[in-house]
Structure formats: structure tokens, C-alpha cells
């Protein structure tokens, strides 16, 4: 049985958000509540400041804390492929899984929309789902968290289960450049313009994802939590890097940003 994993090469990632957009389209996500997002932040202080970014889907952990805390087994680890999925029919909306996920990649569907006005108001649903967008994918499997989310549940990235699970048995890598496999490639991987994302079977030693992890010393985010992500990051330090701390992935607080801007303008006027 495959154990699907993703490798994200941070040296190649340009922070273009194509993955975020593709995932949003594929899974009918709301603006601002992306299962996959690229977080932008800065590191250092003026004059040694770097703008950084960090793409972050669900890690489909081998030892997922979201699964172990769920009191209804609504979120579960699928042994066939290692997907961490949601059963919307069992979820009671207690949000313990959100509290217990160290990566912040789970979304309760009934919160106030991050981006206002709430687009759902323009496309109300008449079958108990949170909205009825004009475009939506044909896939609908509430027992695996696929399709438009109903009210009162938590949702998350499915590792594009609806695509990946249909891949031919025994295939080591799902590569969008192989024509016969591209339909099975997760949306975020398939659209990545600089090809920074790779998807394959972590249980096959010869898979490309395994070779990348071995050759380029792939690391997992917040490995100290014991969750053992199935998403690995490659970072040679040339560009974006894996933030080791939560606060390192921080955009400036508003007052800090104002100070920095003042400092820059002071320096500029002095040198003028």
C-alpha cells in the first residue's frame, strides 16, 4: 500500500500562490481560508531584513494529533495511502482537532469569513451546505471531506484524495509531466510553475520524493511535536527556509512596521 508524501523545494518556490489558487478552485475554498496557503513574513531587523514565504498544506502526519484527539473518529488516517481525512457525517464541530493540530491547517466552516463581504451570502445553498458556488467540482464524498462542506464541521486538505486514490497501483511518483499520470496529481502540485512541489510514494525507496529527501536533506516542519509529517521541505538556504519557530514566521506587528518605515525614511532623508 502506498504512503503518499509531498516534497516542497523552498529554493524553487517563488511564493506565487498558484498552489493556493488551484487548491481553492479544486476544493471550493473561501477567500482567506485556504487549505493550502503561502505564509509571508519577514526575518531579521532593519537593515538586515528578508522577506520570506512559506507554502503550507496539511502535513498528513504519520502520527496525527488531530486524529488522536477527535472524540468521534470523524477525522481519521486512511491506511490506504496515509491520507488524513474528514468524515463530515460524524464531525460534531467540537474543534478539538483544530486546537490540537500544530500546523494550523484545519478550518471550521461556520466562522465569520476572513475576507469580507462574505461571498457565501451571494450563493446560498439549499441543501445544508455552507454555500453553493457557481463553479464546483463534480466530486462529492462527505465521508472523506470532499465536496462543498456542510455546516457545523471542520474541513481540511485531502491530499486531493479524489485524484490520487485513482492513480494506477504501484506507481512511485505522480508527476504532472507524465501525460498518463497528470490527472492523478494533486492540484497544488500540478500547477506549480517553477515545479517546486513533488508528490510520490514514501514507501518506495526509489521514488523521486524519497531521493529528493535523501539527496537534499529534506526536513519536516516542527518535527519535535512527534506528528511526523508526510510533507517534507527542501531548503538549501538560497531562498525561503523552514521556519523553526512560530514567531519567526511573523509579519511585523503594525507598530513595529511603522517604526521600521520611519527608520527607513529617516535614513533615506539623512543620506539625501
Amino acid at each position, binding site marked *: 500500500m502506498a504512503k503518499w508524501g509531498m516534497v516542497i523545494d523552498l529554493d524553487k518556490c517563488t511564493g506565487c500562490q498558484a498552489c493556493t489558487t488551484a487548491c481553492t478552485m479544486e476544493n471550493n475554498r473561501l477567500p482567506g481560508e485556504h487549505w493550502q496557503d503561502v505564509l509571508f*513574513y519577514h526575518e531579521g531587523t532593519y537593515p538586515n531584513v528578508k522577506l520570506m514565504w*512559506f507554502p503550507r498544506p496539511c502535513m498528513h502526519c504519520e502520527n496525527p494529533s488531530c486524529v488522536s484527539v*477527535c*472524540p468521534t473518529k470523524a477525522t481519521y488516517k486512511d491506511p490506504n495511502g496515509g491520507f488524513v481525512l474528514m468524515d463530515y457525517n460524524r464531525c460534531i464541530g467540537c474543534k478539538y482537532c483544530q486546537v*490540537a493540530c500544530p500546523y494550523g491547517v484545519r478550518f*471550521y466552516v461556520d466562522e*465569520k469569513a476572513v475576507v469580507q463581504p462574505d461571498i457565501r451570502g451571494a450563493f446560498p445553498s439549499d441543501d445544508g451546505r455552507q454555500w453553493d458556488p457557481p463553479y464546483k467540482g463534480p466530486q462529492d464524498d462527505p465521508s472523506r471531506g470532499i465536496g462543498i462542506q456542510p455546516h457545523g464541521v471542520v474541513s481540511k486538505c485531502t491530499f486531493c484524495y479524489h485524484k490520487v486514490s485513482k492513480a494506477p497501483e504501484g506507481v512511485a511518483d505522480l508527476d504532472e509531466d507524465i501525460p498518463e499520470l497528470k490527472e492523478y496529481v494533486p492540484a497544488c502540485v500540478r500547477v506549480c510553475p517553477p515545479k517546486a512541489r513533488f508528490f510520490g510514494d514514501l514507501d518506495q525507496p526509489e521514488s523521486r520524493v524519497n531521493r529528493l529527501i535523501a539527496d537534499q536533506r529534506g526536513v519536516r516542519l516542527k518535527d519535535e511535536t512527534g506528528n511526523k509529517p508526510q510533507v517534507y521541505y527542501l531548503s538549501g538556504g538560497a531562498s525561503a527556509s523552514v521556519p523553526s519557530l512560530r514567531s519567526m514566521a511573523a509579519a511585523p506587528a503594525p507598530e513595529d512596521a511603522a517604526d521600521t518605515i520611519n527608520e527607513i525614511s529617516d535614513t533615506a532623508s539623512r543620506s539625501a
Partner: protein
Amino acid sequence: MNNAHPQTSPPAPATHDPAQDLANKRLAILIIALVGLLLAGGQTLANLATQGHAAFNTTNLGLFWGLPIVIYDYFLLTSTGLAMVASLAIVTGAEEFRPVLRRTVWLALAGLLGGVVVLMLELGHPLRALWAVPFSFAFSSPLYWKVMAVSFYVLSLLVLLYRLLRTHWTLQSLRPYALVALALALSVTAIAGVVYGSQSFRPFWASGDIPVAFIFESLLGGLAFIYFFSYLAYAFNPKWMPADLRHLFDTRLPTLLALAIFIHLLFVVARLGSGLYGNAEGLQVWQYLASSPLLYLELFVGLLLPLILLMLPQTRTYPAVQIVASLLVMNALLIARYEYIIGGQLVPLFKGAWAPDLINYVPSMTGWLLLLVAIFLSNAVNAFGELKLGLGSNEQ
């Protein structure tokens, strides 16, 4: 012995029947609670119908559990604290607690009902929870065990109450039932602590001693509630209180309440100290909390002041002091629960474009209304018990 009616009669005019006066006052309390429940509950339901869950001001940025969960846990732990006090008194054969046993167990059920109703209004699928949790057998989840423990805890309280409401009981005869209730109350409280304490990547929450801290916090809440609601049962008129109840209130109870405050204070100060000096990711919340007046209100007004008042021989037996002290402690515990549950979520898991700093959380009006719903509902149930069940009796 029958203490359903006050033993010490007030020097009332001949036309006044003190028992009737007291009954009228209790009826008034019941009516006020019901009207309050109707108003607060009606407005809450209206808000939920128009805004849905968004009425709680929680977010997907990291503040997942807001004021409703604070209220739920506050009432739940108060309930287990009351149950612990009552069952400990029975198990240890503390005869002087007789006059408050019925009231304490009934109050534990009333408080629990208030908390559970709030939880049901907060959950995405409350009805589904009724079958999905028990039949999931999700043994790895602390919440699963919490729900199961609460279910058995309610049953144990009902059995204990049933025995207490019967005639001719002795502490000895109640001991087996009290032991079961005590074990379950301890379990519920400890598991509630594990729900938070096990989240190792949230250092503000994570600690092995949280379940123990919760147990002492519950005991403190239980003692404070016994004081306050016993006075309320006699319309805050100490002259109407039975002599044996007054005796308890002037001898053992102030000492126990002071001791419980002191132990709770030790936990609070220990956590505050290590939190302020610690530099682990997430502990910066302590600096934030230390800059807010709420923490000092809790520490100095809610805990230290009642501790001093209850320790001074000149003040500890004054009814007004006891009422104020218990009220202050009840509020301090609500602040503590709020700061703990909200504080553990203020540092976002990954800051970034959407959450640049500590998460800004302000409880919504619907959240505060839920607090009123819980207060009025528990008070209505409690007042009904005072009116109809003879909760002040030692036995029927």
C-alpha cells in the same frame, strides 16, 4: 432531626410567618431566574439564528475555543467541585456538613446543566454528539473520556441525590454512593485538565500538573458556591439560617475556603512565575496577561482579599464578609478559566499574512449572553430545588 424550616426564628411581628416569607423570597428568586433565562436565552437563539456560529467571534486564525468553552468548563468544574466537597464530607464522616449535603449535590447538577446547555449551543452538531461520541470508542481522545466520565458522573449524582432525599439516611449508609461520585468527579476534573495539559506544542497549556491544579480549583469553586448559594437560599438573611448551618459557616468552612484559596494561589503564582521567566515559544502570552488589569483583579481582589478576610478572626464569621468573599472567589475563578483557555490560543500556530501578531480576541455579545443563560438556568433549577425539595434539610 428536621431542619426544613429555620430553627432560629427571626423576632418577627406576630402577623409574619418567617417560613412563608422565606418561601415567597425563594419563589421570587425562581421567577427572576426564569425571566432572565427567557430574555437571555431568547436573544441568544435570535443571534444564533441570524448569525450562526459566527456570533461567537472565534476565528480560523487560531482562536478556536472562545468564551462559550470558558463558560462550559467553568460550570462543569464548579459542579465537580461541589460534588467533591459533598462526597468527601460523606466519605470522611464529617457530620457538620449535613445541612449542606442536599443543596450541594443539587447545585452540582444545576451547575452542570447550565454548562452543558452552553456547550450544546456552541457545538456544530450537538444532537449528533449524543450518539457519535459514545459509539465512536475513540479511546485515544481525552474528549471521548471526558464525555463518558461526565455521563457516569451525572448518574452517580442522581443516585446520591435520590438517597439523600429519602428519609433516615446516615453518612455511613451513603458512603458507597459518595465514593463512586467522588471518583467520577475527580475523573471528570482531571480529564478536563488533560484536554489542555496534553497539548505539548502549546506551552501555555501543557503541563503535567494541570489536572491537579484543576482539581484544587474545582474544590475552591465548590466551597465558594456552597457559601454563596446557602446564603441565597435564606435570602441573605443569616437569622433565618438553621443553627447547625451557621455553626458550619462559622467554624470549619471559612478555614477550608481560606486553605483552598491559598493552595490555588500557589498554583497560580507558580505558573505565573515560570511563565514570565520562561522563553519557550507561546509563553510570551504571560507578558501580555501581566500587562492587563484582569490578572491583578484576579490575584489581589479575587483571591488575596478574600484570603485575608477569611483568615482574620475579626472578620471571618461575618455573613457579609463570607458572602463577598465567596462572590469574589467565584469571579476570580471565571477570570482564571478565561485567561487559561484563551491565553493558550493567543499565539498563532504560524503567523503570517493572515495573523501578524498575538490573536486579537474580544468575546461577542452572544458569548456574554451565554454566560447569562448558564447563570439563570442554574439558578432557576437551584431555586426550584430550594422551593420544592427541602434542600436545607438534614433528612426528610
